């Protein structure tokens, strides 16, 4: 302590390092993964568009007759009009909101499911784990999309139905990954120490297990957001997802407008383009984050992985 106050050079080092970890992480992101950083900007743009959709969109999402029937692009209607004369641009903007809501809420809830099922199963172990895992096994025998379709077809279309079903299906599938992480964290000495000093099981789970499986959880989150967005689009496309007239990008491509697409390609192009761009950038951004989180992938390497510099 005494040394630190007298040694001014050391003081400087300490001071220079003093911006927050988030800023540090941002700097590393831009330096090491420029493409990922660009995609991060696109992702943030998407969020902003979704939040401020009401302000950005020139027309309401279901205002019919504002554009000409299947109109081509013009200054008044940047992406033209659809089969009911609705402004495509406004519908794409509002579609971003649907995608963001589904991407974030479904993923968040699925993570909650994963943490509950996988975390508890991995931490408690024993018979509980054995029984729960057999059910997870059985659940994972079905292709995800098939499960989604079956459940959605029975409970009916709807935004929150999609979110809940996605959360359930993805959540149980992801619980395996969380379980693995929880099982390895459980073996650490600090967990045994917590048990030894008489911490309750919920306390150990929340204070010691959960924070230490956060890295895995964040990775799972970055993978699941674009996957949920795509899954919602696919469901809406098949007619099980968000029902019309809500402007979901997948729903805009569904059978409802199919016959009109032969008359005007643009009503098929824009929703798909928006969807692809979003999934692409969120994926790339997530990849960049994952690489930065994973210490094993740090440090430069040249051809055939002969190390240029020691990463340590």
């Amino acid at each position, binding site marked *: 302590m005494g040394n630190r106050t007298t040694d001014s050079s050391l003081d400087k080092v300490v001071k220079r390092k003093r911006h927050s970890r988030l800023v540090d992480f941002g700097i590393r992101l831009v330096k090491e993964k420029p493409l990922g950083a660009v995609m991060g900007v696109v992702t943030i743009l998407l969020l902003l568009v979704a939040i401020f959709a009401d302000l950005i969109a020139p027309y309401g999402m279901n205002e019919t007759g504002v554009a000409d029937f299947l109109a081509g692009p013009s200054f008044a209607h940047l992406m033209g009009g659809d089969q009911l004369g609705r402004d495509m641009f406004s519908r794409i903007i509002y579609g971003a909101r649907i995608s963001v809501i589904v991407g974030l809420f479904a993923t968040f809830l699925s993570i909650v499911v994963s943490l509950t099922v996988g975390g508890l199963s991995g931490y408690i172990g024993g018979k509980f784990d054995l029984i729960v895992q057999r059910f997870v096994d059985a659940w994972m025998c079905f*292709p995800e999309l098939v499960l989604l379709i079956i459940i959605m077809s029975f409970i009916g279309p709807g935004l929150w139905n999609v979110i809940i079903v996605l959360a359930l299906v993805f959540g149980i599938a992801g619980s395996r990954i969380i379980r693995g992480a929880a099982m390895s964290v459980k073996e650490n000495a600090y967990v045994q120490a917590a048990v030894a000093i008489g911490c309750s099981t919920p306390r150990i789970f929340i204070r010691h297990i959960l924070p230490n499986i956060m890295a895995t959880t964040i990775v799972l989150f970055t993978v699941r957001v674009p996957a949920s967005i795509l899954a919602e689009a696919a469901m809406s496309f098949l007619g099980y997802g968000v029902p019309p007239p809500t402007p979901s990008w997948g729903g805009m491509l569904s059978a409802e407008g199919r016959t009109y697409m032969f008359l005007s390609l643009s009503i098929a192009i824009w929703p*798909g383009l928006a*969807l692809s761009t979003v999934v692409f950038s969120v994926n790339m951004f997530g990849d960049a984050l994952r690489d930065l989180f994973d210490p094993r992938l740090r440090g430069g390497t040249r*051809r*055939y*992985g002969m190390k240029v510099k020691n990463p340590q």
Partner: protein
Amino acid sequence: MRTYIIRRLLLIVPTMFLVSILLFLLIRLIPGNIVDQMIRERPFSMDAARAAIEQELGLDVPIFEQYGRWLGVLPGVDGSFNGIFQGSLGNSLWTNEAVVKLIINRLPVTIELVILAILIMIIISIPIGIYSAMRQNTMGDLAGRSFATVLIALPNFWVGLMIILVASIWWGVSPPLRPISFIEDPIGNLGQFIVPALLLGMAGTGTTMRMARSMMLEVLRQDYIRTAWAKGLKERVIIMRHALKNALIPVVTLVGINLAYLVGGTVIIETVFSLPGIGRLLVESTSLRDYTIVSGVAFFYAAVLIMVNIIVDLTYGYLDPRIRFK
């Protein structure tokens, strides 16, 4: 090895049992009722008819009894045992056709789609993935990786739709409405299936490419590869003879995992291209709330995926002796 195989095969029984319970509960407990729909479609049906329909379909008995009938351990409506144990998945609630027969009729289309998709996936992804690893962090690698990411991000139903639209608007070509038999017209058949298969395997191609790249990178950092370089071997020999075999082992698993996605994906692709496969059967019967077809198809999918997973695990053990002798 033999005990391992036997144990894996024996484990199928409890897993399938749980699958059947899960499936049955999932489908029967979710609200929405076929009887309502049937009554709506029969103008003469009144409330009195409901009981008759329910009895006819066997929906009047408690749920565990229905489950027993489905399994084939309890006698069905007509008093005969007709369930999974007898190799039957029940009959359609609407048309009374055997679900097994419906599935078998639709099977060739789906199988061809999936097999073609896997072949295309392997042919495209592995060479590019390996090239990417060999030239890590060059423009070629960047191009390969970007290609993979684009493949993962593009929704296959949209690309399929665009292909159909563009082909129809610009060249006046539309996909044939009936499936062309491979035996009668192999070229026509491949022409019909190649685009759907390509789209079906699109995302899988991307993930496999990335997996092949990262596995190859890992292997290329091993000591024995450095030794091979030091011996002065040619690059081609090092890659093909030393690295490839070890790098591809995890990729085999990925093909197995991808199969689940492919099978799920057939539902979408068959709808987009109007191919009469099992996926279409599922979509058609969900809208009719035909429980027996839906559960039959889902049960079939689960059985196939369990088998494939076992085969993948065994292949894995065969390819990697370290796993085999554990």
